[in-house]
């Protein structure tokens, strides 16, 4: 299942310290990992912490000591870690975390919704959104490589149940080949009595700015590095990831912008609509942070309309992918109509007919009359 793909990714990536706390729908990730640690398939220390906040704290400590670390969580757990997410990026600790996109309470929901991970978009983590099990496994391995090169943490995000709990056939690469692709983590600076430093002390206005400037500058290197790493991986394993997945975008008059599993549903819908002669395409964003500005601007050059589908909303504003797409296009193509749809919150199903509705709506109107177009809400 998708969750197990995360576990296999961590195992093949030779994670050395894992600290995690159970939360539906992530539990299978850590259950399989504890089995792997117990029977020595994975040589790692598994700290069975008492909360997600402690899980991230333990990972940070271990990462600072120079170990490769991995954890996984969801919704409430991710929110509980929030303080430490800032710590990981500011401390330049390359933790890799699996996050299962789950709706934020109240009321208690265990179903798919992107608000949890998108609420963390400002914390300085690289965010990968996956849509199938193979992609999950491949992304975790590449995430270790990218994170450790830049010293910026990353999260690999799956939809609750539609990805975390669905079973698919996955090609599990050989450990020896993965070892060639991903060498051991050997940071230059670690916490050790042989070279004592105090990490993270009181930092005044005369220094903080430069430290954060450096973080942003390194984040800006990520798009190129992700592409390069993707090509390397393709050479060795035959599969390419990259920052986005384009489907029929070259001659599309309307491009859908999606992410996660609804991105694969969109692909199916696009194929269906193409058969009916509608020139629609799908752009599935795989890397949300850092936002793929260049790719998006390039792909939209020849299209007439864009429809962004968000499985999330920033209250008092709009869907977050919509905000980011619009801001990417500002200054590049003011006349391009961009429609912002909100669908599937709290796990409400997004089907090919949802996309049909979205496409018909967008093709009918010349430009969006409302900032938010709600799809599937019982009004």
């Amino acid at each position: 299942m998708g969750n197990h793909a995360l576990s296999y990714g961590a195992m093949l990536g030779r994670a050395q310290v894992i600290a995690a706390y159970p939360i539906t729908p992530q539990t299978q990730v850590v259950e399989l990992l504890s089995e792997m640690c117990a029977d020595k398939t994975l040589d790692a220390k598994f700290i069975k912490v008492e909360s997600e906040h402690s899980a991230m704290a333990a990972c940070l400590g271990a990462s600072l000591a120079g170990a490769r670390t991995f954890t996984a969580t969801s919704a409430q757990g991710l929110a509980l870690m929030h303080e430490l997410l800032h710590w990981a990026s500011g401390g330049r600790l390359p933790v890799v975390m699996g996050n299962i996109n789950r709706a934020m309470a109240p009321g208690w929901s265990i179903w798919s919704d992107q608000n949890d991970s998108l609420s963390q978009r400002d914390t300085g983590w690289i965010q990968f959104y996956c849509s199938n099990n193979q992609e999950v496994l491949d992304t975790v391995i590449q995430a270790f490589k990218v994170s450790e090169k830049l010293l910026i943490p990353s999260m690999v995000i799956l939809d609750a149940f539609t990805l975390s709990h669905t079973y698919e056939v996955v090609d599990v690469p050989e450990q020896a080949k993965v070892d060639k692709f991903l060498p051991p983590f050997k940071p230059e600076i670690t916490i050790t009595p042989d070279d004592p430093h105090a990490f993270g002390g009181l930092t005044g206005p005369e220094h903080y700015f430069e430290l954060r400037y450096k973080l942003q500058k390194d984040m800006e290197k990520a798009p190129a590095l992700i592409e390069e790493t993707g090509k390397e991986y393709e050479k060795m394993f035959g599969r390419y990831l990259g920052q986005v997945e384009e489907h029929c975008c070259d001659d599309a008059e309307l491009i859908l912008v999606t992410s996660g599993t609804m991105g694969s549903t969109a692909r199916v819908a696009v194929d269906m609509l193409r058969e009916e002669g509608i020139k629609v395409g799908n752009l599935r964003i795989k890397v949300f942070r850092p936002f793929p500005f260049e790719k998006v601007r390039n792909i939209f050059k020849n299209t007439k309309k864009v429809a962004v589908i968000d499985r999330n909303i920033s209250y008092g504003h709009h869907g977050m992918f919509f905000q980011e797409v619009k801001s990417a296009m500002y200054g590049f193509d003011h006349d391009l109509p961009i429609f912002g749809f909100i669908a599937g919150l709290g796990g409400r199903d997004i089907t090919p007919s949802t996309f049909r509705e979205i496409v018909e709506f967008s093709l009918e109107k010349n430009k969006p009359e409302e900032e938010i177009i709600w799809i599937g809400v019982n009004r």
Partner: protein
Amino acid sequence: MKKEKQAKEIIFKSEKEVPLMPMSVGNMLWNKTGGWRNIRPVIDFENCIQCGICWKFCPDAAIYIENERPVVDYVYCKGCGLCAEECPSKCIAMVEEEK
């Protein structure tokens, strides 16, 4: 014996010199905390019984042992008075700093 250590202030001329993660690259010896005090300890060596208690109870490690005697490092002594208070032979006087 007092160990000799380098004390210098660190200035980064540009972001390129700033370490990647906030980490220390020097010690605090440049911070001359002796400037904090109003009164200073003065040891009367005639009555000093060389017990080492003043050295033991200094929170700033500002008393060191040299030639079997306690020596106050006035560069760092904050004038808290613990040495004088704890001295069993009462041979340390806290004297006002002259301006």
